[in-house]
């Protein structure tokens, strides 16, 4: 299957309607202490959603995904995946025979203690690494068979990464950081700017466009990182301990935002964490220990308290 096909199938079958329409208010963010900004009417700019409109490639009927009825075909499928690291003479298996299927629209939380292999798993899901043994299927195609530039393209178009340590480019300002994934996709400069402005509006950082990461607080940095991860409107968001470096209040805003993306945009969210707090957002929890899946719990109704 050609790469473009894979990506197209992803896009069409996924519920990626006019991005973030429903997140207009993003009111929760404005509750964060450091952003009582002087924005007059955030709603107005946000209505100019550059992801919407006739030219928008991602504009799909909200129901299209569901109607396609392909819920039983997993987005990502791991079969007997091993990951071993060479440590001098000895080998260390960070993942030992993991079988997992991830479906669109899921809010998956991978929960496990430190060193259990969560990040290793995350890297495989995000096409940042290839398994030592076993297969990672992305929409039914084996990622081990794709070449470097194809993997880069998948990462660029399909997956939004959120890291524990934010991983912003320190020499680029807020806007440039958000623009970067669009630059890699050679998005038209004007549209890219509109999208960046829109996303920064949503995460409440319109007034920090020209600040360098070093001039932002941890929470603000992670919001920039979220805006960046959403820039290409990817169907999947992968987050590795996204709240690990944040205080619980700021962390909660980030999580509720991701929750909103999942609920209202149908984005597939995969969060890897050791923090039990996060389970309340999950539709499914994968418990991992010593590189093996211990158990999987499913929740039909994920609804954190306080969220309406």
């Amino acid at each position, binding site marked *: 299957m050609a790469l473009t096909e894979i990506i197209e199938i992803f896009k069409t079958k996924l519920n990626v309607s006019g991005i973030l329409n429903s997140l207009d208010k993003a009111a929760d963010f404005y509750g964060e202490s450091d952003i009582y900004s002087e924005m007059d009417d955030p709603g107005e700019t946000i209505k100019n959603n550059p992801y919407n409109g006739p030219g928008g490639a991602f504009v799909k009927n909200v129901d299209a995904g569901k109607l396609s009825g392909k819920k039983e075909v997993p987005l990502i499928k791991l079969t007997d995946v091993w990951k071993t690291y060479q440590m001098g003479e000895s080998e260390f298996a960070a993942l030992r025979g993991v079988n997992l299927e991830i479906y669109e629209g899921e809010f998956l939380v991978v929960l496990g203690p430190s060193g259990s292999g969560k990040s290793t798993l995350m890297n495989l899901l995000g096409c940042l690494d290839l398994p030592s043994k076993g297969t990672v299927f992305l929409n039914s195609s084996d990622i081990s068979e794709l070449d470097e530039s194809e993997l880069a393209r998948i990462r660029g178009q399909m997956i939004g990464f959120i890291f524990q340590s934010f991983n912003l480019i320190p020499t*680029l300002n807020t806007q440039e950081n958000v623009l970067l994934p669009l*630059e890699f996709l050679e998005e038209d400069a004007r549209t890219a700017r509109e999208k960046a402005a829109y996303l920064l509006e949503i995460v409440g950082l319109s007034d920090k466009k020209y600040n360098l990461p070093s001039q932002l607080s941890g929470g603000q940095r992670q919001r920039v990182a979220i805006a960046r991860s959403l820039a290409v409107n990817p169907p999947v968001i992968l987050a590795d301990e996204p709240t690990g470096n944040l205080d619980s209040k700021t962390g909660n805003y980030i999580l509720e935002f991701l929750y909103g993306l999942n609920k209202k945009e149908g984005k597939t969210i995969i969060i890897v964490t050791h923090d039990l707090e996060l389970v309340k957002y999950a539709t499914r929890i994968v418990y991992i220990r010593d590189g093996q899946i211990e158990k999987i719990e499913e929740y039909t109704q994920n609804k954190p308290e306080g969220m309406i």
Partner: protein
Amino acid sequence: MRNSTYVKMALNMLLHSKLRSWLTIIGIVIGVGAVVGILSLGDAMEEQVQSRLAEMDLTKIAISPGYTRAMSNMPGPHGEGGNTAKDSELTDDDIDALQGVEGIQHIAGEISGSEEVDYAGENATLSITGVDPQVWKYMTTLETQSGRLLEPADKYVAVIGSDVASGIYDQDIGINQVIKIKGKSVRVVGILTEEGGFGDSSVYIPIDGAVSLIEDAEEGVFDTIMVKAQSEDLVDTVMEDITDKLMISRHIVREDDMDFSVTASKSMAESVTEMTSSMTLFLGAIAAVSLIVGAVGIANTMFTSVLEKTKEIGTMKAIGARNRDILMIFIFNSAMVGFVGGIFGVMLGAFISTLFPMLGMTMMRSEGDTGIFLSPRLMLFGLVLAVVIGVVSGAIPAYRASKLKPVDALRYE
């Protein structure tokens, strides 16, 4: 990723680079400055040599007593050649022996020496050359600015160089003025045009008169025998014939025993040109070494920079950068480093080239006209060279950066 984006990213990296990175640019600045400066010196020297050669009569051959290497013996009347065996002499007999050589247009003996010359109560030691007034005006390339050259009937008259006429003595010497050489009155009949060489401070006198004015000079004995070949092409065969004839007439069997030397101004010219270009090459090579050092400096900085940016590279790969994108960003960056170094290097080269005239003058034994400048062509060359060096030295680090595995890069602390 578009080229404009590469430029943007590379520029961003450059503008945020640490002082340490800027310091390595100095290597390129010095290297390019030195290369450009030396090449411009070479250009100027060559230009000067060429213009000098254009004035030169390339059909001239000088025969001088003693065997010396051609290089060290300047042809012409002021040969200060380092002759080792001064015990041999050139005489009328040698000229007679050469009469039959084909291809010779003119032949004449010359004597030379340094004598005190008095004028208007002042006294200076000048170089005196005794020339054959019969043929001198046909053989010399010198020209008068006023008066005339020597005529066959002349004896105690002189043609003087431009410096002698005005400059050496407080009072200028005009045509028909009388100077005194060893107490003997000599009338000035001609003043030479300035030519920027030794001739400017020389005095030319018919050889019959000069014999009595120059210490140790003897009738029929010459310091140099000047020969003018009929054409430039004949110079080589004429030289060979002269050597053969003189060896026979002087009863010399082995070349090692030769007690005279034959030098063509043509071969002089060739060796001077050769010397100039090999000197430029030599200096250029030294300058190139500093360029290499500069290149290693850039490479080193780039390696460090790649190491420092490992995590960023990982991040960029995670958000969609291909290997090629990373490669290009770093290559563009090092090209820019080279470019900046090139600009300052060309500026340094221009500065260096303004210092060279003094050095150039002493080397060329001439004054004034060294028009050293940095041609636009050379400036462009310097810039291109710097950019190429930047790209070449940045290539390996950039390649290394591009090949980093995203996971490994992201894990890097």
